[in-house]
């Protein structure tokens, strides 16, 4: 099996994978980074969204082998500090403050997508823009109301960071 090497959450990692291994499988099964979730098999739900070389992508739509030398950030790499003094990313904090999650399964993808949205669209996002930009992420619990509020607040809070 071929080898692939990349940087994930700031650490160099490598592994032997099948040609058909998806990036999300590499993250979950080889690196045990189970925060990135698989919610569908057609790249619709967005649960597996990560940052690949600084851009938000669905990790179910990328082959692991195509990520040779890439820089990957997953939900596990967003907060700072150690296990004892975790400092949430402003977007994570905004989701907590605004009750932007219920079961939490779509949440990692929502947050990675939201951070990417701020990078692409700036900090002053209105409701309509956020709703439009969340098209690629499905949530079944929250009715999106509090997610939209969280993204708006998180985007503003990221300005200071």
């Amino acid at each position, binding site marked *: 099996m071929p080898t692939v090497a990349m940087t994930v959450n700031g650490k160099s990692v490598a592994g032997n994978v*099948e040609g*058909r291994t998806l990036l999300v499988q590499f993250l*979950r099964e080889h690196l045990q*980074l*189970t*925060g*990135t*979730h*698989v*919610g*569908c*098999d*057609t790249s*619709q*739900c967005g*649960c597996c969204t990560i940052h690949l070389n600084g851009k938000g992508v669905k990790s179910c739509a990328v082959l692991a082998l195509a990520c040779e030398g890439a820089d990957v950030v*997953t*939900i*596990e790499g*967003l*907060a700072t500090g150690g296990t004892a003094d*975790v400092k*949430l990313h402003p977007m*994570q904090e905004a*989701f*907590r*403050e*605004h*009750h932007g*999650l*219920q*079961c*939490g*399964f*779509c*949440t*990692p993808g929502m*947050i990675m997508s939201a951070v990417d949205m701020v990078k692409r669209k700036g900090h002053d996002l209105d*409701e*309509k823009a*956020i*709703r*439009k930009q*969340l*098209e690629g*992420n*499905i*949530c*079944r*619990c*929250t*009715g*999106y*109301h*509090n*997610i*939209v*509020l969280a993204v708006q607040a998180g985007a503003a809070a990221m300005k200071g960071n």
Partner: protein
Amino acid sequence: MSISATSHKIGEPVRRREDQRLLTGKGRFSDDVNLPNQVYAAMLRSPHPHARIRAIDSGKALAMPGVIAVFSGSDFIADGMQPIPYNQFTLHPAEMQLPNSDGTPAFTAPCYSIAIDKARYAGEIIAIVIAKTVNLAKDGAEAIEVDYEVLPAVTGTIAAADSKAPRLWDDARSNVCVDADVGAKDATAAAFARAAHVATLTTWIQRVTGVPMEPRAAVGEYDAATQRYTLHAGSGGAVRLKKDLALIFDTPVEKVRVRMDDVGGNFGTRGMIYPEFALVLWAARRVGLPVKWTCDRSEAFLSDFQGRDLAVTAELALDKEGTFLAMRGSNIGNAGGHTGSYTPLQKGVEIMSSLYRMPCANFRARAVVSNTTPTRPYRSSGRPEVMFVMERLIDIAAREFGFDRIELRRRNLLKSSELPYTNPFGMLYDSGDYHAAMDSALKLGDWAGFAGRRADTKVRGKLRGIGAANYVDTATGAPRERAEITVHPDGNVDLVLGIISNGQGHETSFAQLVHEWLGVPLDSVRLITGDTDIVSVGGGTHSGRGMRMGSVVIWNSANEIIAKGKRIAARLMECDPSVIRFADGRFAIENDGQAKSIFEIAAAAEQLKDLPDDLRGPLAAFSDESFNEASFPYGCHVCEVEIDPTLGTLEIIKYSAVDDVGRAVNPMIIHGQVHGGIVQGVGQALMEQCYYDPASGQPLTGSFMDYAMPRADNFPFFDTEISEVPCTTHPLGMRPAGEGGTTPALGVVINAVVDALAEYGVTHIEMPATPERIWRAIHGKSN
């Protein structure tokens, strides 16, 4: 969320304790569980909606690299495995019964975890392949050769009830399993005979599916030395799952353990045992290794239990002033390919008359089987369907006979002074203020200002409509629940409960109760629910039973801990227990400086040798109760839509909801429940449907590319308001809050759509009201 919690007490919007791990990728969902040496299962599913299995040849699959075993239904039977012990009706004593009118028992047939003789829906499991990797197991499944005798199939609800329809069970007289006649037939006929007006509606509340975002997954272990099975799988409840598995394996319950941590959504879809849960355990026993199975989303569309699917014909009789005289009709519920559950039919028909004064009613209630994925209760099981019918009938009557929609509701809506009220099906509504809820919702939705907004919309060439819908929601569920509280000297409090959080935030809201009643810090409370080796009793999460039942058994346990603590404190401080007061986690002598904390008392309980027997040992208490009364949450929603007549596209402009929860423990969580509930209901009204091709019986919605899921840009922000009129049948005044968002949403949206289209002579539109359907309605094309 502009309001911050000022304390952790009951009624405060306390931010959730579970969020830290879920936000940082540290949640532990079923597919995150991996065991040493585990192997993987793939399910071979029937491609045919209806087929007899003549032979299964697994030779080629077994010869493939990495394939360890292939099992089929005949192996399952040869091993003495038992059918899944489904309860077709709800077990709650407050529920109306549905006896067949000819005196025969309801038809039920054994449902095995794997097809034995026939496949009765496309997606039914035919064989299970065990291999070293998931991909090898899937490759193996493709290599199995099955000789099917393809049979004619029926998927439509009304079509399945026809005596000439293809029959799923050879020994049944037809596909009709339940045929009950409920209510007062003669009185209803007499009322209709003297009615000035009769409004009628024939409709189908279409088949949808719950779609929890976490696909199902299960890891099965078998320990040959102890002959014990351990299942790791997310579900609505652990204890019931354990008992069901013990019956399937014909083994004592102690030989089965069920484990789960985070569960990614339920909505009823995950409420009952699934065939795969038994199969991974059985396969683990057969191959001697742990077996893991993870459901693909496309597989979930075939095999997750689906919901709704009720065909209704209903009539409402009114006198010339608009007073309701009676209602009657027929409901046919589609159970799908097995006789697993008739609960939605039962839970719907018993409250057909909703919150309105209805002197009499009469309904025929039938359940049919068909060649479709089996159905189960789905968020608010049965009630959104019948609330839709009632609220549509009222709007139809108003328009046809010249009444004001709101005045017609107001005239017939039960007043507080009339409660408790027994509805024509025998259901006893305890308490509430239905008029206040409706008035609040109309105010919140600015019903009075609608005419002006409609005029503005018209200028822009669009159509605007508004609708209102009242609802009542019967909450029953498995009646028995148990809490165990142990206060540890190290400052922790364990709360063991048989209720699983599927996203409802139990680690926060149940901890708020313990914090308030025992005065311990919120973060000292450790909620333990997902391990049947610790949790012995409990009904799980469904039918609005979590907080409703959980609060009472926690309250009882807390009170017993306080009573015990007072006696221990009296012994420590050498006084009479009667002078000790408990507040804020401290036992203090009245009018004295002396006090001991609850944790000091817990230490004393473990250390003092001379305490009476019932006080010695851990400071702990339990409460185990059965709840035999139903609860009736209620409320009113108002929805306003704007339609582009050229395209048929629709925008929800405003959605306002007032839901009564009796007493709110965590309003932040309740508002969240309402938001999510609304979207699930609106999803059904406007876009969702499990389509089956009527000619071939094939399911056509197999992925998120075919099944329309509500997305963020389909909605505005919602205006939700919590009403708190204490419930008289609950010791703490609480009503459930998890289903109210969904229950009226179908009716209120369609009422608004029809209102917008009224100028085109549209009197009704079927769900889902897609742009195509709306366009056709406007342009006079057939639906």
